[in-house]
């Protein structure tokens, strides 16, 4: 299906047009929102189409699949695309009010769209090396979006972010080369079919190489022990953009972990990777939330919470090592990713509004926001309770599914860590609540206009309520997506067609 190129090509063309329109601020803003809205509608249609008719495939340039580069959209890809585009649209609508004229002149919108290109591309691609290229496009866009405005703090943090990601990129290329040398293909479907037939020494070699990918994706997802770059760099991003960063960028890492360690590597002993992830997830959850508890700046607290939340998703992938609970664990992870992207983005957007109202991001200097902007307080209450996992919001269900999977599989240690982390999250959120919203008033009136930003934020907040109360369609979709990647037969068949299985390189 040739239309699969649209989520990559359309943002790219928009970025180019926006760059040419530089200087026409209003026109730029209008185009930004229209393009994002249209693309969101398209990816939702794609989700519906794929859900009905099975995976859609496009080969670039017409070269047949294992040789040419394939773009594949299965349910998981479509879910991620929908999240990327809808959160992207919401964030863009938010930035219409929050972006400063200087930032806009510094090509803020084109850079944001380049980032969208990379994110959508990394969800769509069906080729390991092409995933690397998608990552790089995403990173180039995110460096720019992080740096826009070029304050001292931004320069410093972007430097760190760029350095850490350059190392990850090198490891990624090395991993691709070694996989090609051992298995003889980089196409994900082909890899999945070929690694499933590997035993003994060959399988052990592939497992060893797959550990390189574990490092790369864990770094992207900010899992323990590779999370140290995140809490410093995200808070310096322009308001609104950090909502997209927080929602999507680390989740690209989680998506890649799911895709590569559940679908691609299926050799004998591939469980080693998921078992490692299970151990890492415990540390990630606990250290993330402990880091959040000792912070005194609203964006830093939220950034540390990203790490702890990534722990839950990685835990779901880790639980998939046990075949008896693999399906429910992976479904839980996908459901969690959906919940997390929505809630985390909304919290960053709310944090940005609260910061504008109070004129500061330091907890001790804020206060009384519940009087100044009661709507913001309501949004924060819903989003933070959802993040901590209180019913009836989406956070409760997503944690419930994962905890139940863990308890069924007998992983009581990780389950208890997950529950403790959830309570500590609640503690840390109540700290923000009591300082920012309850403390004595910091000022007599809101320091800056904020009403325009409320509408986009409201969409995300309503979504987390809706997803908690009307969860069945989401759970069904997550379950179907999980079955797709756990039994990759239809994925492999739709990419490779009925071509006779080729022999593995010696």
């Amino acid at each position, binding site marked *: 299906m040739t239309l699969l190129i649209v989520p990559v090509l359309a943002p790219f063309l928009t970025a180019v047009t926006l760059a040419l329109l530089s200087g026409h601020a209003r026109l730029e803003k209008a185009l930004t929102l229209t393009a994002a809205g249209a693309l969101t509608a398209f990816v939702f249609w794609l989700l519906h189409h794929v859900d009905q008719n099975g995976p859609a495939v496009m080969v670039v340039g017409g070269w047949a699949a294992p040789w040419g580069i394939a773009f594949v959209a299965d349910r998981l890809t479509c879910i991620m695309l929908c999240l990327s585009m809808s959160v992207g649209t919401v964030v863009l609508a938010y930035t219409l009010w929050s972006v400063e004229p200087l930032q806009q002149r510094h090509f803020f919108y084109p850079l944001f769209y380049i980032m969208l290109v990379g994110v959508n591309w990394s969800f769509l691609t069906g080729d390991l090396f092409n995933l690397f290229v998608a990552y790089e496009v995403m990173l180039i866009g995110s460096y720019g979006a992080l740096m826009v405005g070029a304050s*001292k703090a931004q320069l410093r943090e972007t*430097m760190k972010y*760029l*350095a850490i990601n*350059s190392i990850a990129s090198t490891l990624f290329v090395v991993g691709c080369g070694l996989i*090609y040398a051992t298995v003889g293909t980089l196409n994900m479907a082909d890899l999945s079919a070929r690694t499933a037939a590997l035993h003994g020494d060959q399988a052990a070699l592939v497992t060893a190489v797959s550990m390189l990918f574990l490092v790369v994706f864990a770094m992207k997802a900010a899992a323990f022990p590779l999370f140290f770059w995140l809490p410093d760099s995200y808070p310096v991003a322009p308001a609104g953009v950090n909502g997209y960063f927080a929602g999507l960028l680390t989740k690209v890492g989680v998506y890649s972990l799911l895709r590569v360690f559940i679908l691609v590597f299926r050799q004998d002993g591939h469980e080693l990777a998921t078992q490692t992830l299970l151990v890492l997830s415990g540390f990630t959850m606990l250290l993330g939330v402990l880091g959040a508890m000792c912070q005194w700046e609203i964006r830093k607290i939220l950034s540390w919470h990203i790490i702890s939340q990534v722990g839950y998703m990685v835990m779901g992938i880790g639980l998939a090592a046990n075949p008896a609970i693999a399906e429910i664990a992976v479904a839980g992870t996908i459901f969690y990713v959906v919940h997390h992207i929505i809630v985390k983005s909304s919290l960053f957007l709310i944090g940005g509004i609260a910061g504008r109202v109070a004129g500061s991001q330091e907890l001790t200097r804020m206060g009384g926001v519940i009087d100044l902007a009661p709507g913001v307080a309501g949004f924060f209450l819903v989003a933070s309770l959802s993040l901590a996992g209180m019913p009836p919001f989406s956070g409760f269900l997503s944690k419930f599914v994962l905890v139940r999977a863990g308890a069924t599989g007998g992983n009581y240690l990780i389950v208890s860590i997950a529950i403790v982390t959830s309570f500590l999250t609640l503690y840390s959120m109540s700290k923000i609540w009591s300082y920012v919203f309850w403390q004595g008033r910091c000022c007599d009136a809101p320091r800056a206009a904020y009403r325009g930003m409320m509408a986009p934020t409201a969409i995300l907040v309503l979504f987390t309520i809706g997803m908690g109360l009307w969860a069945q369609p989401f759970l069904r979709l997550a379950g179907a997506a999980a079955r797709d990647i756990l039994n990759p037969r239809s994925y492999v068949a739709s990419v490779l067609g009925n071509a006779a299985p080729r022999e593995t390189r010696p």
Partner: protein
Amino acid sequence: MEFAMAAVIGVMFAAGTYMILRPNLIRMVMGFGLYANAGNLLLIACGGYQLDWQAPFVSEGVPPTGLMDPIPPDIILTAIVINFAVGALLLTLCYRVYLDHHTDNPEELSARGREEPTA
């Protein structure tokens, strides 16, 4: 041949790591350059390498034997282009950091960062 390649790649990765760990931003950029090229050499080694192999042009009637595998060079080309772009960005950023923070030492950079309140 394979041993020589492995040795060269190993030395380049070691040198790159050393450079990246130096307290100097420009050396760090050079370290990334070494990393990138070590990665590219590794890709050549992965593709298998024989002196008498021909460029992979298949003509009609001639059996396609003794040809290079075209995929690794293909990957290397892409990687070179990407590394070029990222390298240019890194250098520009280093210069901007130097102009604004008056240092090219990453350790001083983070030490100064703590004093200044984040905006």
